């Protein structure tokens, strides 16, 4: 338990930092994004790392993983295991349509002074009152909501699993998320608490960063409807992310709310 909460803390911190070239990136990478046949499966890697998509830092906690089937119901990840640097699980695609595979992290981060010392705490809202001593001064609490996703389609794409939950940053497809091709523009919409997130920076980085000398990030900004378009320069797995912060936390003590979203999207050759 101690180990688990410590790992989670590192992750929360990694994701709370602004995304930059040095930031750790959390990702889910499926073995395929388009499958067919009578009994399709995919296997998914889930990790936090510097390079995309090489597990070199820490695994994603499996209890944070939620798989949504095309009918909107939760599907169970199978054959799950967590190693030193990555978690692995399989998804059995028993329904036709698009599956959403997500890792959702959130919680509170607090800093305060007690007995003349600076202290930090991370945890769930229910634990906050107990965690901070009564004599604490300069208490600052922030909330974070971080969502990391990828998508797999069995046969024809569908929208049933892609409905926004209305909390934090989320992606709504305009172009179908598993239907991306090099040289073609794809359009998506970014939502904040279910409403269009306008004027937000979105960054796309192709995988295999280990084999090139620059991140070669593609920067775009959402328009007034929260929409953005990316023309994929080449085929590959791309990590698309956005982050922001506001003061709309549902936790009364938290003045700041930090939000981030990242998706792994596969772009296929023409």
């Amino acid at each position, binding site marked *: 338990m101690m180990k688990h909460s410590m790992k989670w803390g590192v992750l929360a911190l990694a994701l709370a930092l602004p995304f930059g070239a040095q930031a750790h990136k959390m990702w889910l990478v499926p073995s395929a994004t*388009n499958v*067919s*046949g*009578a*009994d*399709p499966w995919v296997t998914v890697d889930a990790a936090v790392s510097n390079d995309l998509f090489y597990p070199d830092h820490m695994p994603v906690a499996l209890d944070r993983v939620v798989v949504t089937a095309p009918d909107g119901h939760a599907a169970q990840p199978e054959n799950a295991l967590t190693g030193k640097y990555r978690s692995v699980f399989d998804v059995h695609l028993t329904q036709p349509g698009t599956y959403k595979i997500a890792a959702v992290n959130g919680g509170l981060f607090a800093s305060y002074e007690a007995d003349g010392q600076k202290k930090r705490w991370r945890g769930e809202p229910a634990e906050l009152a107990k965690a901070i001593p009564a004599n604490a001064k300069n208490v600052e609490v922030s909330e974070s909501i971080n969502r990391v996703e990828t998508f797999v389609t069995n046969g*024809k794409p569908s929208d049933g699993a892609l409905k926004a939950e209305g909390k934090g940053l989320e992606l709504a497809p305009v172009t179908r998320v598993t239907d991306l*091709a090099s040289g073609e523009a794809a359009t998506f919409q970014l939502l904040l608490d279910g409403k269009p997130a306008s004027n937000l920076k979105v960054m796309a980085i192709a995988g295999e960063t280990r084999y090139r000398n620059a991140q070669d990030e593609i920067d775009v900004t959402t328009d007034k409807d929260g929409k953005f378009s990316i023309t994929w320069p080449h085929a590959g797995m791309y990590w698309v992310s956005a982050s922001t912060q506001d003061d709309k936390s549902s936790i009364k003590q938290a003045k700041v709310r930090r939000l981030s979203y990242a998706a792994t999207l596969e772009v296929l*050759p*023409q």
Partner: protein
Amino acid sequence: MRRLSLTLPAILLAAPAAAADLNVTVQIPQLNVAEYHRPYTAVWVEREDHSVAAQLAVWYAQKESKEGAGTKWLPELRQWWRRGGRDLQMPVDGVSGATRPAGDQKLSFHDGKAPLGPLAPGKYELVVEAAREVGGREVVRVPFTWPATAPQQLAAQGSSELGAVKVDLAP
């Protein structure tokens, strides 16, 4: 009812007069590789907006397996899969079949008859895509205008997974 019985024979008589043929030859090259598998191959007709006007042929491994014969690998025919392969429920009568060996594979289609169906006059592309296990993938396109006013021979050349693709149009 009387009206219908009068017009129906007229349509049946008119159909053969408008019939046009589309003959396709797909050359599957002989490849000297350590591990050879016959290519999965799709042949279809695209309109100018890339929508599918007709699915003509899909060749894939037919051997029974838990994964449903070779249908697991159909998305490897990437363009075909995006352009409409994923909308089909395999197998499709008169369209799907076993993979073919190296050589010239001849196909014949007739206007108004499945799988070509009635093709509205206009500009089209005949598209052939091949993808091979532990091999490569290639797409060859042959633009044509339908229907042909005179017999016409068109061709395009593949460079790796496909050889010559010939299209013979008969008015």
